[in-house]
């Protein structure tokens, strides 16, 4: 069981005392800073996604190119093997 420290206060906090700690301007400033970071983070994530997709696209295109090259080479070989040798 958690331990609790129970204290007794003779006085209630006065509104004046509490008012010293009010600072809405600071909260707004921190909020705007947080929003700015959030926006920057979002842009960074979008950039990462775009970069990832671009890399995937490049890999696929290169793979396709290599496949075509191999296919062409195989076809050429097959034609050469299928055609009768030239008599000279």
């Amino acid at each position, binding site marked *: 069981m958690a331990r609790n420290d129970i204290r007794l*206060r003779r006085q*209630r906090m006065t509104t004046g005392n509490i008012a010293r700690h009010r600072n809405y301007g*600071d909260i707004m400033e*921190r909020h705007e800073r*947080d929003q700015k970071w959030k926006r920057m983070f979002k842009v960074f994530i979008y950039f990462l996604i775009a970069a990832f997709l671009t890399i995937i696209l490049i890999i696929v295109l290169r793979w396709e190119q290599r496949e075509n090259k191999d296919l062409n080479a195989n076809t050429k070989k097959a034609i050469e093997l299928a055609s009768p040798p030239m008599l000279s």
Partner: protein
Amino acid sequence: MTEAEIRQEYEILDRAKRDSKHFGILYEKYFDRIFNFIYRQTDDEDLTADLCSQTFLNALNNLNRFEFRGLPLSAWFYRIAANEVNKHYRKKKTDRVFSLEEIRIKELMDQGNEGWDEDLIKQLLVYFKELPTDMLEVLELRFFEDKDFKEIAFILDITESGAKMRTYRALDRLRKQFNLSIKYDGKK
């Protein structure tokens, strides 16, 4: 709080979602209450000020996530504040503080002409010390913040019946141990 007042607050909240400057109205309205609520659980003015600002900042940063549940907006602020206090104690790993106003305790205990002496107060403090934290949280919200069980359930993320059960158990023990009559729900 009437339903019309709750609706009015939600309208302010909707405006604040579009333009955060409108949040100032809610900040001004609830700052004192949230400050007192946190102060009762920390007994440290500077720490309370930090946690209180963090509470309102979290609320402001998460306005779009807020869902209407028919409860006063204050319940949402209390919930964030309670989470901030819990987070603080989890991080610091120190004893949890409950700093109770003597005058409020006297108001709650209907002593009549009988003596309200220092010994009784000391015994009460010992009694509160023996109560588990979750029971103290419920008692604080019910008797020091005047929250109803629906709100307490939302603030502490428990069921309404759970909040009721904790309160009545604590009160029964208090009545038996001290032979006190407590002003509560019109019953004694």
